């Protein structure tokens, strides 16, 4: 079983000016790892580019992920590759899903989206609506034609406020947040100036009211590798090679190392190993950003290496 996780592009369609939606499935038709609203996946593209995209589909469909990709003109080529090169039927590498932007339980939500920042909010809105929560969405973008999923959102009626800038100007945050009352959570995703404006507008509200996700440039130090690497077992001194189509876990267990595992999806945390040297390429759903940056632990079922060699405490 090839355990390096890949997704197959099952569909690709334009959904707004400069925005495509990709439908992704397991190449063998298996269930995909479970996720919750606000989660993102890493796509590992040729040349080792790693890009993060929010899942915006339906979690009740376990076989399909959906993401939306804005063409970034000033970007480093990730979105251009997805727009111009990647075809239906081709494969991309997968990391995650991880969720740094979870929907917490509340009776009322105010959602604020700027442009492609609508993507993590789509499943949150579906969920809030399912739960019968009271919610409103303020959704801004340059033009009406650039508001991805605008028509779909129109189906929610007057809870949704589509405010393209060419017709309405900048979003009226004080007006929208004026509807705040105790127990309301505010969720915002979009470009940095919008986040800053929302943070200012929420400054007088109780702590933990506002939840944001920013599209930060990835903090990873280099590209993911697409070539084999070595794993050195510090105690037995053995050095093993991990080919591109095998997981670290499979290589370790084939060599007789006693590494326990369970879910094999980077979720349960059972196959943790201690990293003594080298730089892991984390693809799990368990570690937070600080733990990832520390680089001292990894989950062998899905995570790999950025360096030529990893030394592990086995």
């Amino acid at each position, binding site marked *: 079983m090839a355990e390096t996780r890949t997704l197959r592009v099952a569909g690709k369609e334009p959904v707004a000016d400069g925005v495509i939606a990709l439908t992704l499935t397991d190449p063998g038709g298996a*269930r995909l790892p*479970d996720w*919750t*609203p606000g989660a993102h996946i890493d796509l590992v593209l040729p040349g080792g580019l790693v890009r993060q995209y929010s899942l915006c589909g339906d*979690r*009740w469909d*376990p076989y399909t992920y959906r993401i939306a990709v804005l063409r970034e003109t000033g970007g480093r080529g990730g979105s251009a590759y997805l727009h111009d090169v990647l075809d239906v039927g081709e494969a991309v590498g997968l990391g995650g899903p991880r*969720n740094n932007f*979870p*929907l*917490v*339980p*509340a009776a009322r939500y105010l959602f604020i989206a700027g442009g492609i920042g609508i993507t993590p909010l789509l499943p949150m809105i579906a*969920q809030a609506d*399912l*739960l019968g929560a009271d919610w409103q969405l303020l959704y801004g973008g340059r033009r009406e034609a650039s508001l991805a999923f605008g028509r779909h959102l129109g189906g929610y009626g007057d809870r949704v406020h589509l405010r393209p800038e060419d017709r309405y100007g900048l979003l009226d945050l004080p007006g929208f947040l004026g509807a705040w009352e105790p127990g309301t*959570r505010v969720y915002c995703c979009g470009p940095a100036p919008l986040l800053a404006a929302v943070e200012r507008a929420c400054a007088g509200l109780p702590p*933990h*009211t506002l939840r944001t996700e920013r599209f930060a440039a990835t903090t990873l130090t280099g590209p993911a590798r697409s070539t084999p690497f070595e794993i050195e077992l510090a105690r037995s001194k053995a050095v093993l090679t991990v080919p591109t189509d095998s997981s670290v876990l499979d290589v370790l*267990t084939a060599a007789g190392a*006693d590494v*326990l*595992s*369970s*879910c*094999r999806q980077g979720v*349960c*945390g*059972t*196959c*943790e190993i201690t990293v003594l040297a080298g730089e892991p390429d984390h693809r799990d759903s*368990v570690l937070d950003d600080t*733990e990832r940056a520390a680089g001292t*632990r990894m989950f062998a079922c899905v995570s790999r290496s950025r360096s030529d060699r990893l030394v592990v405490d086995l």
Partner: protein
Amino acid sequence: MKPPASHADPFDHDNLEDPGPLHERLREAGPVVRLSRYDTYALARYEHVHAALTDWQRFQSAAGVGLSNFRYEKPWRPPSLLLEADPPHHDAPRRVLSAIVGPRALHRLRDRWAAAAADLADRVLSCGDVIDAVPALAEAFPLRVFPDAVGIPEAGRENLLPYGDHLFNAFGPPNDLVAAGAGRIAGLSAWVNAQCARDVLTSDGFGAAIWAAADRGDLTPEQAPLVVRSLLSAGVDTTVHGLSAVLYAFATHPDQWERLRAQPALARVAFDEAVRWESPVQTFFRTATTDVTVGETVIPDGAKILMFLGAANRDPRRWANPDRFDLSRDPSGHVGFGMGIHQCVGQHIARLEAESVLTALARRVSRIELAGPVRRHHNNTLRAWRSIPVRLHRK
């Protein structure tokens, strides 16, 4: 197609004493067997149990993970926000608790629990060579370290095991085991619920961390005590019987104990192999959310499905020599902790407890040998021991 039917009662005392023969009959009868006595469907093969555990969309938990169907019957206690919940309600409690008892939190406990296990082993060995491993080790260790880690007071901890025992009985039919616990349960529940309040819990435990999550808005204040209750409900009896299972396994497989002593790093593998071999949690139910086809059988919407974790963990289709307790086996992928979004959130706690105890014993004891007749404890859900007399041969 109509599935094969069985009139067996998985919850009668013969089957609770020795479920192996029933498990084999169910596995061999087909992918799905109808349990006529309880108007429910049984899954006993690894493939189908694993599939049902991971498919939360079609096999729901919110209608109860016992025989009782919450679509039609009132639960005996307010349902668990974890075990007896589906997404999206399940999301926030699971996320919060996963972080609190996840690998990072457990690293902080490692040294403390190793010291506690060494201390317990020394004390047990000073009391003589023959002990009953169930109370002296399997109960004593979790009851010492786990309530401390949650942060509940000392007083009343003797209520934890009877509460858990009744809770796990209550997932079965209303038989004599449930009746036997019914008299005490109101008092036990009241005690457990009282331990979940913020002001009862110490400031540094899992319980306080759950309340801190409520303060951040990651949970509602109404959810916090129920999440604490989940720890107290699911975190004691299960680890007690898991430890009993691994100690019994070593008492009856001296060659495997030799192996562990030679290679103490195998402690984690040994515990998971014992969880596979014995399956301390034997069964859980799900409820079909739609007509679900398994094999050639259509299980109708709303039907209860009984998943035999213990049978799946000994399915010869998945495991070579499944009845053998064998440290050379890779037990990874067993369903003793479940699988999928409801997989035991405390599995790392259980493993660390077991690793602590086994490591302490392996340093001190050259051989564990049965020293008298062993006795099972019957529970509708748990595979449990009442008594395992053993002689501990000192190194």
